[in-house]
């Protein structure tokens, strides 16, 4: 009887291990439109309403935890914010003057003015779920293909760019954040518009990104701002997914400056761990332009 139980236990265990390995191999080997991906998408489609309902129901709990966290961190931020306020006041005075001059120049030269993201038909969406592991920096939002959301569209929050849409369902979409290991955004930085690629430092670090491929004479400084480059190719076959000039982050430090191993670190403006509402830019650059 005991032997039978042990044999049964081992047989079930072996069967489940084999099932896992088959699933893993098949999933990893197939394309994005394969059968297992289809099953995954179909199941997600069915579960989206449940997750959305649960997300709304559990929002008070999240808010309560958030309130405790905010209260604790707010005390530490007062001094930083006071210093930043003083700096911003001085900057505002300069900006007002620059804005006045800019408006006159713009009229004079009949330029189209600065790019406005309103032209990209932003759609506001609520964040319903977030990936529980540090290996995947993804979130799920409650807007999908029925709202005009498509794979590849950029996603921003009230502060800056946060990522792009990587999977779309009828009433929901998956967003891969800038901090995901698969993320890469062409960008420009500083007053000299140095080009580079913003990529994550590694998994599990939402407050640190790297600006790569800047070249040996980039001459960037801590405090320089990094925005999307918004490139267009000569043939228009591979335009950037992101509009130009969307803020990404600010350079915090430069390691091994001037050497081949130079690493430009930046802190994203958006707090990737505290996303509640986001906006998907649902119109492509060509249409918006």
């Amino acid at each position, binding site marked *: 009887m005991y032997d039978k139980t042990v044999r049964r236990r081992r047989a079930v265990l072996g069967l489940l291990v084999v099932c896992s390995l088959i699933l893993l191999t098949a999933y990893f080997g197939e394309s994005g439109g394969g059968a297992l991906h289809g099953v995954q998408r179909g199941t997600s489609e069915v579960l989206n309403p*449940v997750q959305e309902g*649960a997300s709304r129901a559990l929002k008070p709990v999240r808010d309560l935890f958030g309130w405790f966290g905010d209260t604790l961190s707010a005390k530490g931020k007062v001094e930083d914010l006071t210093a930043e306020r003083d700096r911003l006041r001085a900057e505002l005075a300069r900006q007002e003057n620059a804005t006045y001059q800019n408006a006159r120049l713009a009229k004079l030269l009949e330029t189209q003015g600065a790019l406005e993201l309103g032209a990209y038909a932003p759609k506001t969406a609520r964040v319903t779920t*977030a990936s529980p592991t540090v290996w995947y920096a993804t979130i799920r939002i409650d807007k999908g293909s029925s709202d005009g959301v498509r794979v590849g569209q950029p996603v921003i929050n009230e502060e800056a760019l946060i990522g792009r849409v990587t999977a779309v369902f009828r009433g929901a979409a998956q967003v891969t954040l800038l901090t995901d290991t698969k993320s890469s955004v062409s960008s420009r930085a500083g007053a000299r518009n140095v080009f580079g690629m913003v990529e994550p430092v*590694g998994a599990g670090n939402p407050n640190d990104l790297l600006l790569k491929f800047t070249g040996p004479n980039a001459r960037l400084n801590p405090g320089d701002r990094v925005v999307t480059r918004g490139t267009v190719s000569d043939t228009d076959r591979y335009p950037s997914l992101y509009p130009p000039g969307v803020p990404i982050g600010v350079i915090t430090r430069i390691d091994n400056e001037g050497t081949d191993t130079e690493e430009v670190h930046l802190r994203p403006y958006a707090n990737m761990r505290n996303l509640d509402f986001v906006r998907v830019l649902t119109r492509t650059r060509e249409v918006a332009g």
Partner: protein
Amino acid sequence: MTPDGAKLAGRLVALAIGGVVVQTTAVSQLPIAGANADLAPLLVMAVGLLCGSLAGGSFGFGVGLFLDVVTMQTLGVSSLVLLAVGYGAGRLREARDPEGSLVPLAAGAIATLTFSIGFALMQFLLGIDAPLSWALLRQILTTLVINALIALPVYALVRRSLLAALPDDPRRRRRRAYTTGGLSPLSRS
């Protein structure tokens, strides 16, 4: 399947679905010291400790598969690692039958560590381009501490939700008999 078995299976399915939904919709969005709790290994550990290796392993496989589907991750990764966690917890119960009140805490910490390391190994084997950084280690350690702290309430919650459907374990019955005085074989003699 016996009615008791069906009842237990039903409760385990409900627990798996409820646990994964709560994890993805609430717990994953509650950062504590830069990380968040991970209910999956704790639930699987609790089921393994309460129901044994077979149920623990199967529950781990199911929770992992559901988690991979819901979060659009590579299918089979979480299920393989959680299967090992559930089986290990079940074997601990079958081989040692630990009775200490802090066993779920220690088992929860070990389950979380096993899951974190196993998941990381799988990711590296699958070729994810992510260097092993201090930030990553700090997050794993923070999750480990948070999970150890909430392991006892999670275990109590799982035990409470499964208790009515659990088969009457002879060892538990024997312990109960000795502690209730009148039913002890010594008092009868």
